[in-house]
Each structure stands twice: as C-alpha cells, then as structure tokens.
C-alpha cells in the first residue's frame, strides 16, 4: 500500500514509515516490512547506470549472446511487463504529503513517447487510498431530481451503447510547487499529474435519459466509493455534453488506482471532478458545496478572494526532451519533443524558443490532433554547446495563448495552488545539464 518512491528523492529509505496515528500495530509492521523490501528496489532505480555498459562480445562483428540461446517461452509473463532495462520508468510520489494514502504520484513524462500513457504509469491522486472493490458488489445509484431512481450493475452499464475517446486527464494541482520558485527537478515532478488514455464507457447523457432527469436539475453530485467518499458537483451542461461513465482504459478494464470498476470522465475539466470508484449520482438544483469544491480545488487570488468552480484546464505545453535531469553529452543535432493540450478543444499551434523566449519557431504537431487530448510536438534543434533556455508555448483553437509565469502571477498572485499553466523553462548549461528555471 505504501509507495516509498518519491520525486527528487533517490533514497526513499530515509523516510520514516508513514503510518498514521491510531493505525493498528499489525498494519504498522506490515508497512515497515514493505518499506524495508522496497529500499532495495529504490537503490537499483536510483542508479542511472543500472543498465550495464555495452560489452564488446555482443557488438559487431560478434554474434550477440541472445542469438545463441533460446529466449523466454510464451506466457513467461502471462500479463506482460516492460523490459528489465526500463526499470526506472515508474511513477514517483510527491514528497510533500504527510501520508501516502492522501497523496499523488507523477507520470514519468520524460520517458514516454507519443500521446498515450500506459495504464501502469497513469498518475495517481487518491484522498483515502485505492479501495479494493469487487465489481460484482459495486453499484451505481442515480437519484434526486429524476423521474425514476435507478441502480445499475457494471454488467448493466456495459450493455448500454459505449464509445471510446482519447482524452487527457490533468490534476488542477499539476505544477503547484512551481508558483513561487522552480522546485521540482524533472518534468515528472513539474508536469507529471498529467496522463492521456483511450477511455471506453457510456455517455452520461444516456444514463440521465434512463432515469429521466427533471428540468429543474442543474447540478449532479458525483460520489466515489472510497473512504474519502470523494464528491464533486458537476454542472448539467457538462453532463449532457461529453461526460462519460468509464469502465475501460487503453483497452482493458480500469486499473484499481484509476477507479475500477467505474469512474466518471469529464474531458478537459480538472481531474478531481472525474470521480473514481463512482457509486452515486444525485441530481439537484444547486451545487452541493462538498469539501473538495469549497475548502480545496478553489483558487485563492492575491487579494484574498477565492475563485470557485474553475473547471476547465487551460491550454498548456511542456518540453519533455530535453528536460530537467537530462544530460546532453555532445553538441550537434537534437530533436526537441514535448506535449501540448487544452481543456477547451484542439491545439492549433505550438511554438518553441531556445533563447528564453526572445525568438520562437513553430513546432511540428504529430497526428492525431484530437480535442481535449495530448498532442505530441517536435522540432529539430542544433545545440551549439552554449547555454540555452528552452520553452514551449501552446495556442489552442479558441486563440488562447499559453501565458508566462509573470503574466499569471500579475493577475492571480502566487497563492492559487491550482490551475498553474505557465510556460516552462529548461536551462541548458554549457556542460549539457538541463535544469528547471524561471528564466
């Protein structure tokens, strides 16, 4: 249950066990054992040289060793796993939360290609851990301002007409450490509360037709079956537009940490609203004013007021190669690569600067360019061996231009926590180190 691998934290073993007060001693001991066993794994992961140096016996003109023996037979891994040489491509948890039950882990964007996030690397954000739900015992209740309150099994939902869509999911707290100073070392830490999957499920509007919602219903409470009873109010317009009840991601049933067996997905909206382990939808006239939409997920502005119901994730982009923690070994040709996305629709253009925002060049956008989905951009770049500052700037189909940090701070101050979508700067030093800077 406890993940001990934290961003920017090569030796997780320095942490004391994260048991909470009042937890039973048995649990505490179990966690200590987990901690001890995971420490070995952390050391292996922390060592960048875990892939051993190439041996000449496997290089031309010699015949490599793996051509002279039989490999692993089929179903050696009934559910396949990545090559052992990719062992450091993993989620890493934040190091700022007191426990790992209410915490988050980041997607390793620096190690991914294309736009789809593999299921095992989709970022996690739980408020009370991942519940262990038997799908046979899971129910979705839909009630409130409806003609007919209904209860659905997962089997019922899968029988309804389903669609599949590729959408990003981003926590509105993505980048929260970066408001005041560049804190996280890697793009995993600065932008890793971001993933993109093919999601399969039933349009929420279909379910609303089944229960017959009443005209005075303007908001829907979505409630999860975790110990946080995660709950958010969803405007009916979004519910009828493109909201989905999701049971599968990237071709397989949802992973437990992504809401198995049922979650909501509100494309382009802050991730918290896509309630996982969904068990209840209640239609009402007004927002329900849950804890998460009042004391959390509201944006404190510099003058002391707080914005509430700031749902959409505004256009954003980030260079994932080269990015913080990478090391350029020699001058010459490189290919800058990154991701862009907008909660308001499609990305129209991405510009890249290599001189700290003085001059910009348009990057190439890779197909497909989908609405409310990650887009991969690439641009050829010749590193002359001198210092450089790399930036990317997204423009979406509404004409919205991703702002600089200074522009955001001038309007909102630095206390908002949520919805930070500033241009990211990566500084390249003369010896090829890549650092997170506010340049």
């Amino acid at each position: 249950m406890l993940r001990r691998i934290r961003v920017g934290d090569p030796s997780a073993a320095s942490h004391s066990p994260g048991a909470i007060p009042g937890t039973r001693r048995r649990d505490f001991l179990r966690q200590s054992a987990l901690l001890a066993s995971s420490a070995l794994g952390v050391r292996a992961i922390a060592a960048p040289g875990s892939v051993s140096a190439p041996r000449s016996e496997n290089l031309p003109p010699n015949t490599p060793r793996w051509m002279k023996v039989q490999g692993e037979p089929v179903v050696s891994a009934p559910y396949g796993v990545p090559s052992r040489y990719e062992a450091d491509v993993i989620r890493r948890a934040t190091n700022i939360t007191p426990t790992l039950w209410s915490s988050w882990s980041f997607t390793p964007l620096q190690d991914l290609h294309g736009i789809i996030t593999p299921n095992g690397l989709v970022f996690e954000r739980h408020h009370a851990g991942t519940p262990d739900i038997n799908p046979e015992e899971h129910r979705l209740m839909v009630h409130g301002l409806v003609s007919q309150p209904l209860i659905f099994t997962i089997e019922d939902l899968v029988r309804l007409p389903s669609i599949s869509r590729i959408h990003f999911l981003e926590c509105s707290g993505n980048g929260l450490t970066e408001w005041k100073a560049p804190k996280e070392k890697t793009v995993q830490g600065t932008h890793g509360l971001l993933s993109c999957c093919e999601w399969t499920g039933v349009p929420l509007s279909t379910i609303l037709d089944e229960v017959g919602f009443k005209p005075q219903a303007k908001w829907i409470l979505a409630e999860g079956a975790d110990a946080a009873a995660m709950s958010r109010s969803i405007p009916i317009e979004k519910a009828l537009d493109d909201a989905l009840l999701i049971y599968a991601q990237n071709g397989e049933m949802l992973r437990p940490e992504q809401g198995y067996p049922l979650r909501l997905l509100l494309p382009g909206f802050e991730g918290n609203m896509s309630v996982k382990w969904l068990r209840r939808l209640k239609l009402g006239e007004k927002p329900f004013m849950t804890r998460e939409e009042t004391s959390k997920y509201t944006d404190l502005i510099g003058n002391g007021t707080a914005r509430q119901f700031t749902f959409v994730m505004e256009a954003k982009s980030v260079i994932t190669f080269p990015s913080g923690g990478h090391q350029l070994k020699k001058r010459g040709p490189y290919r800058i690569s990154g991701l862009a996305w907008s909660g308001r629709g499609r990305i129209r253009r991405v510009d890249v600067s290599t001189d700290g925002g003085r001059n910009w060049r348009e990057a190439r956008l890779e197909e497909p360019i989908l609405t409310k989905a990650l887009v991969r951009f690439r641009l050829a770049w010749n590193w002359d061996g001198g210092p450089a500052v790399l930036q990317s700037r997204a423009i979406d189909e509404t004409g919205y231009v991703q702002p600089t940090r200074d522009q955001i701070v001038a309007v909102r101050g630095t206390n908002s926590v949520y919805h930070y979508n500033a241009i990211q700067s990566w500084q390249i030093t003369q010896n090829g180190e890549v650092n997170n800077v506010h340049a």
Partner: protein
Amino acid sequence: MFTRDRAIAKAILLLVAGSASLCWAAEKYGLGRVATPQEIAGWDIDVTPDGAGLPKGSGNVALGKTVYDSQCGGCHGTNGEGAAWDGKAIDRLVGGQGTLHTAAPVKTVGSYWPYATTLFSYIYATMPFQAPQSLSPDEVYAVTAYILYLNGIVGKDAVMNAKILPKTAMPNRPNFISPDPRPDVKSVACEKDCPGQR
C-alpha cells in the same frame, strides 16, 4: 425536499410495478433496476448548505472536545493547530483569519471554509481518517460544534443540530467568487525579438 422525493419515488414505483413498465422498456433501454427508498436512504449521505441531508441528533461543544481529543487531535493538533507527520503538516483546522491576502495564507475551517454544513458532511462521511463513518450523528454534531468553537464562530455553550448548523454563518463566505472569470490572463504570441518571457 427529501421526503417529497421519497413520495415521488414511491408513486413511480407503483406505476412501474403495473402495466406502465412495458412502456418504460419500450422508450428506454430499461437496464438497471428501481432504487428503493431504503436503498437510497442508506447511501444518501451528502449534506447541502440548506441543511438537507442532516440527520437527527445534536451535540455540544463539551462532548465535541471529548470526541476531538480521542479521535482527531492526533493528526489535527491538541487545539486544531495541525500536527506534523513524517515531517509534513496535516491540515490545520483553526486560525488563519486575516492571512488570506498575505504571502503566507493559512486556510482553515475558520479562515476559509464557506459553509458550516460542509464541515459536518465531510466529518460524517470520511472521518476519523483511521475509521471513516464510525462516529454517530451526535458525535459529529458535537465535534463540528467544537471545531467552530475553537475558531471563535460559536460560543462555548453552543449546541449543533439540523436546525442550527445551516444558520451558522462562516466568516469567509462572501469571499468566494463564481462563475469562473477565466480566460483572465491574456497573452500574445510574439515571434521575433520579443522582450524575453519569464
């Protein structure tokens, strides 16, 4: 509102049980089954600012202190001032008034939360962290009263119940703004010889 909904649900239940169910199936997919009032009552745990959803019961500040000391103080501090766990702060519940516009805002129940009903609702559904949904309605009313008392929002003799709680005004309520004013940050895509972007 709650009882009215139940009455409607009952009426529809009777309709569906009769011949109308055939029409229903013809117009819709007809999947899922009717949720009974008892099933809904068991799961309908939310509480809204108008007090809908609040259970029967009551509790005072004195009982609240007893509940708090045994169930809450370990994480939230003896007097709601927060505690550190693994070197990181756990949510502070008390204080912070007057800090929201400063460089170091302290968001607590007293300084930030806009509705007292949310406090009850959240505790009732999710606390204490080590045993969610283990407190009785009386205990939740009491500990709600105690946290409001620690914040100077109610007096030390205060009692909380389904009538008083929705009428308890929270000081920061007027400072919440909606609808969303974004896009609020306007930028232009300068391309050549720009001033440099920070």
